[in-house]
């Protein structure tokens, strides 16, 4: 691939990327969230078309106009979410889409099919029963079935996107054995992972991406982990963040030994006037932490207390989002369009949805004039730009949509704000505005729990940063004195030098 560029409205996701994979090579691809890895993979898969640049396959220029062309060329993508048919057995999944062998009367020759499937797996050195429905196999075995499917279709280039995310250490070892077998068969492998130690174990060369660009491509043997982390962060241009507040007020939220599906034993206190950042890689349990506090995700163990709600009975953890809002806890969800907004409905209806009864006569009858007045007030405060407050939200830009979500949180008297990737997918100008809004809110006595995958933003905006690594709390770092290297190292599971627990 040479000089590949892909631009989305407002973002250049992949910018002038040149990238090559050799036959029989495992090529590691690393970068922070949003560095452009996913887009690059989609271009390789034929799912997204590049704006500029050329792609050569086996020396021949190719267009990769669609998924079928990519498949025909022998590009196989192993997604995090495997494309398997859960109730088909391994053999059928391996040959899915290929003609099955038939018997003389037209029926499927299952015995031959199973024999061929077993042969494929044997070539890869994987011992997996081929006659068991794949949903009964372990995640690692399923991954290998997916790899075998690509191999059976004569894949020459295999792209694996975070293949180990759901695997145990033992399964990872077996997966690596399969990848080495692929390498010996002359297959080129692009290996994407957030786990750097894996990159060093399996990759021959490593390409680092940052902000849509390739920073470097080097033999893995020439790099060490610290160097890799430094390359991934680079020296970003500092965005101007509003000044931090002066000191913390009373505690608003106390979390003690909280555990859920992923998160394990998380403990912290959020104070009035502070922004507490939550750092971690995708899947580290950041969103889950917020959703547990918000009464959505189940809590396995631990306690959540809201000391500011003085009445003893109400200081307990919220049981549902409705309960959370009543107790002054508001959430800006991760996925704005699917979780945050009712896109087809007008702006003002989205703003007033949570506290609708407050704007209604007697708590029952709608008072649209009052709703519009309140929406206009909040909109002014947040700098919401819209044609009309009766406009469906779907017509707004990302930044303005997010302001609608914020306005809804502010419509109540929320003091604990849970913000999950509040600036994702919005342009720089709107981001800066949101930073200011977040700081203004803390100055007025709110406490903010901020999840963001953009480290500069997380560090620049927070007072303290809590780091999660695979659900475990690595510590809480003072944001004023830390840097990205320290936080990112902690995200990857290295215990930082100066870390103070609570």
């Amino acid at each position, binding site marked *: 691939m040479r000089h590949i560029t892909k631009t989305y409205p*407002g973002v250049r*996701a992949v910018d002038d990327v040149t990238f090559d994979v050799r036959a029989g090579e495992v090529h590691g691809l690393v970068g922070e969230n949003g560095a452009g890895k996913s887009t690059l993979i989609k271009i390789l898969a034929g799912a997204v078309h590049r704006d500029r640049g050329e792609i050569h396959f086996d020396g021949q220029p190719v267009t990769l106009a669609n998924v079928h062309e990519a498949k025909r060329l022998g590009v196989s993508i192993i997604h995090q979410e495997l494309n398997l048919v859960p109730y088909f057995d391994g053999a059928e999944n391996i040959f899915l889409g290929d003609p099955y062998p038939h018997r003389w009367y037209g029926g499927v020759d299952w015995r031959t099919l199973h024999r061929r499937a077993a042969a494929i797996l044997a070539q890869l050195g994987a011992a997996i029963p081929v006659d068991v429905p794949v949903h009964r196999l372990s995640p690692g075995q399923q991954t290998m079935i997916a790899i075998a499917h690509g191999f059976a279709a004569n894949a020459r280039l295999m792209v694996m996107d975070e293949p180990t995310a759901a695997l145990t250490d033992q399964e990872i070892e077996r997966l690596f054995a399969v990848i080495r077998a692929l390498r010996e068969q002359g297959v080129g492998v692009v290996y994407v992972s957030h786990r750097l130690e894996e990159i060093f174990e399996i990759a021959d060369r490593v390409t680092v991406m940052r902000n849509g660009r390739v920073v470097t491509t080097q033999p893995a043997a020439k790099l060490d982990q610290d160097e890799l982390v430094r390359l991934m962060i680079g020296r970003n241009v500092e965005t101007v963040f509003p000044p931090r507040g002066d000191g913390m007020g009373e505690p608003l939220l106390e979390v003690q030994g909280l555990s859920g599906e992923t998160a394990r034993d998380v403990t912290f206190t959020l104070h009035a006037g502070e922004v507490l950042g939550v750092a971690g890689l995708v899947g580290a349990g950041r969103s889950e932490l917020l959703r547990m506090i918000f009464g959505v995700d189940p809590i396995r163990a631990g306690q959540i207390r809201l000391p500011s709600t003085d009445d003893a009975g109400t200081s307990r953890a919220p049981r549902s989002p409705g309960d959370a809002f009543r107790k002054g806890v508001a959430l800006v969800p991760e996925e704005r369009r699917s979780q945050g907004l*009712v896109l087809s*409905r007008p702006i003002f209806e989205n703003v007033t949805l949570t506290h609708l009864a407050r704007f209604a006569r007697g708590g029952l009858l709608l008072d649209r004039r009052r709703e519009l007045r309140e929406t206009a007030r909040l909109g002014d405060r947040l700098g919401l730009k819209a044609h009309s407050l009766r406009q469906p939200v779907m017509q*707004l830009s990302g930044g303005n949509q997010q302001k609608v979500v914020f306005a809804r949180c502010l419509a109540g008297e929320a003091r604990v704000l849970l913000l999950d990737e509040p600036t994702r997918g919005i342009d720089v100008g709107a981001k800066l505005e949101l930073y200011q809004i977040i700081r203004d809110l803390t100055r007025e006595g709110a406490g903010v729990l901020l999840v963001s995958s953009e480290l500069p933003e997380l560090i620049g905006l927070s007072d303290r940063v809590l780091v999660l690594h695979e659900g475990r709390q690595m510590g809480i770092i003072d944001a004023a004195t830390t840097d990205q290297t320290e936080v990112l190292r902690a995200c990857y599971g290295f215990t930082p030098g100066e870390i103070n627990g609570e």
Partner: protein
Amino acid sequence: MTVESTTDNPPRRRSMSLWLRTYGTFIGLLAMVLIFSLLRPGVFLSVNNLRNIAEQVAILAIVSTTMTVVMVVGDFDLSVGALASLCGVIVADMLIKQLGLVPSIAIALAAGALAGALNGLLVAYAGLSAFVATLATMTAYRGLSLWYTDGSTLFSGIDEAFRPIGQGSTGPVPNSVLIMLGVLAVVWFVMEQTVFGRRLYAIGGNAEASFLAGVSVRRLRLIAFIISGVGAALAGIVLTSRLFSAHPTAGEPLMLTSIAAVFLGMTMFREGEPHVLGTFFGVLLLGVMNNGLNLLRVNSYIQQVITGVIIILAVLISGLARRGQR
């Protein structure tokens, strides 16, 4: 990766499809009225015939109006026809057993609410799809009325005081039409002017976002089904009074026709969301067509074919318009 729309202004293009979507059903209704009154001058538009149409659509309008509530939330209720029959059978049986007018009606309505609550529990709390849950309860409710009546029609011994509901008039207006107008007014008011209705629309637009915004999604879905159940029961009661007999499958045709009416109505309002007034237009359109074709002595089997074609046309027009929006 989502590609954000970067315009802050409402799109002004594609006005033709928007126009068709908004007014297509209405124009269809007007065109039908025009054609029928030209083909049957002096008959179609006579006071008598209009009253006829109103009476013919009253029962369907009641069911369709409450069906709209369920469809606003994004579900639908296949059991309304069977439930209308069941509640009709119940009210007739109570009247035959001399329980008195008001208690009999109250029991039938309560049965409707209970059956609707069962639908709602299955869908909102047990997590069944509306299709599976109400298909199953439809079968069960039909079985109950057949078992209750042993497959026969109940007619002898029904309290005469029950007759005016479906057959009497108040002044020039048939009572069934008054009931229909009452249901329409109440449901319209609830859906458009109350906190409850707004929340239902929000759930229909995006259930997850509504949940995360603090709306009690499950409870409201349950209530929507209860409303639909009560509507079906009321329709069954009026139907039984009108026929002055209760047949265990008398209400069956209501189910598909009411869903069709809501779909026709969805082609008229907002972003293709169900709407009470739209549904009423849908009901009128079906009623006018039925009446006009009868006046023209069109074969009743062919009428069904025409109805099917009209529904497809209307939804196609609105569907195309909605695709054009993307």
